[in-house]
């Protein structure tokens, strides 16, 4: 199992091909978005929605054998592409590793505006929500 840092480095390396060209980066992200495994429709509930002004995100998480499994979807392809990267990075990791990790790949691939202060997309809130899940699983683990 690769570490969170190793996976992020791999992603950054893949995106270096585009040499900072925004259009190619976005086209690639949209392709990744199309390949994101579909989320179980039953999980696309109001409770699982992470709302943004323009794009919305559905997020669900479960703990299996001490590792967190995320499922997510979005109504926009670019956000979906970023979600698929985030899932690559954080899926099958322990809650502790997720909580201790620093997400650096988003900025390095030139998409820092997606995690900035603006409320137009659900992506920034999604990252927070994923960490909240990790925190909840961690405290459950200690309680058991």
């Amino acid at each position: 199992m690769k570490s969170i840092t190793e996976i992020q480095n791999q992603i950054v390396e893949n995106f270096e091909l585009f040499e900072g060209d925004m259009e190619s980066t976005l086209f690639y992200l949209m392709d990744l978005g199309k390949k994101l495994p579909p989320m179980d429709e039953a999980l696309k509930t109001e409770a699982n929605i992470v709302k943004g002004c323009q794009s919305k995100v559905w997020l669900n998480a479960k703990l299996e054998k001490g590792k967190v499994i995320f499922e997510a979807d979005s109504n926009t392809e670019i956000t979906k592409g970023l979600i698929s990267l985030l899932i690559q990075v954080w899926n099958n990791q322990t809650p502790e590793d997720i909580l201790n990790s620093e997400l650096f790949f988003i900025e390095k691939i030139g998409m820092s505006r997606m995690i900035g202060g603006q409320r137009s997309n659900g992506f920034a809130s999604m990252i927070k929500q994923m960490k909240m899940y990790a925190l909840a699983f961690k405290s459950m683990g200690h309680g058991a």
Partner: protein
Amino acid sequence: MHQSKLNIESIRAEFPVLHQQVNGKPLIYFDNAATTQKPKSVIHAIRHYYEFDNANIHRGIHTLAERATAAFEDTRVSVQQFINSREKEEIIFTKGTTESVNLVASSFAKAFIKAGDEIIISGMEHHSNIVPWQIVCEERGAVLKVIPVLDHGELDMEAYQKLLSAKTKMVACVYVSNALGTINPIKKIIEAAHSVGAKILVDGAQAVAHLDIDVQELDCDFFAFSAHKLYGPTGVGILYGKRELLDAMPPYQSGGEMIKEVRFEGTTYNEIPYKFEAGTPNIADVIGFKSAIDFINNIGKIHIRKYENELLEHCTNGLKNKVTLYGTALQKVAVCSFVIKGMHHFDAGMMLDAKGIAVRTGHHCTQPLMERFGIEGTVRASFAIYNTKEEIDVFLEAVEKLVK
């Protein structure tokens, strides 16, 4: 088609912000309905004020205060002439259209709206001309009625006639739709409102940069707009109101400037417009606004409108077989609102930005209108005097690539 004789290159040279690269491509700014860029003259006026004249206005007796006051009041006269109000006292400075609407909703309602009264708005209002009236209705037990929107993005005028009655106390209606570009038949809407004794507020935010405005000829009771949508600074709005109404309305905010005399036993209020201008206003930007009005007057609205119509036609023709256009009214300003099949507007906006093209995406603060058309939002390209057909060609090519 007859070509405009304007020298667009020399107009563009007045706008420093346009001459830059975004994502490695020359900036194409098509988000003018959100805010227009500012010419050098506006930027210089603001800078000059801070460098030479900065002082608080109206109460100072020193030279700087006098210069600042004179420049501030010059803008009021300029606005008066720009929209042809009877007197300059009918021009109130606010921080934007939103505040202008809120001022009327709050003060007019206190004086004139009671339980059971009816307020009519249209189905294509910006949220800022919906929510203040919802609050008025909630607070005063009044009833909100909505003029429906037809398929081409025009108001259902027959339905409007039926909504009007002796119970109607206020009609608050947008002149030009920000999301669709529709120019509403505002004169007819005003006449109909008056025929039942109702007053009318016109949201002119999207109209002022494109259409000639004469508030006396329109005979509207209130007219609201923002400076930043007509090449002026942000943070400056205008509320025009007829004197007899403004005189009869209570103050909106209280504090300095708006008083005549303050005693602990009671306070008397200043005359209009100062009654509605509590506190230190946005002096620098109000002064800068005069330069924006001068800029428009120098070109002439008639030339602006003609040129922008050419841009609108060029863009509409280029888009109409590729995308679904929303807002196909006969009378429109230069706004193209559309949806690309199978592509979320957010993705489209990001992709266009990658090409240096700035458009607005989303519901444009008109969620009920989007619901009316069964969509979440649109991509909106809106044009101004400094845009060109060549820019539209680059945009159309980019859209074409997204449609594929």
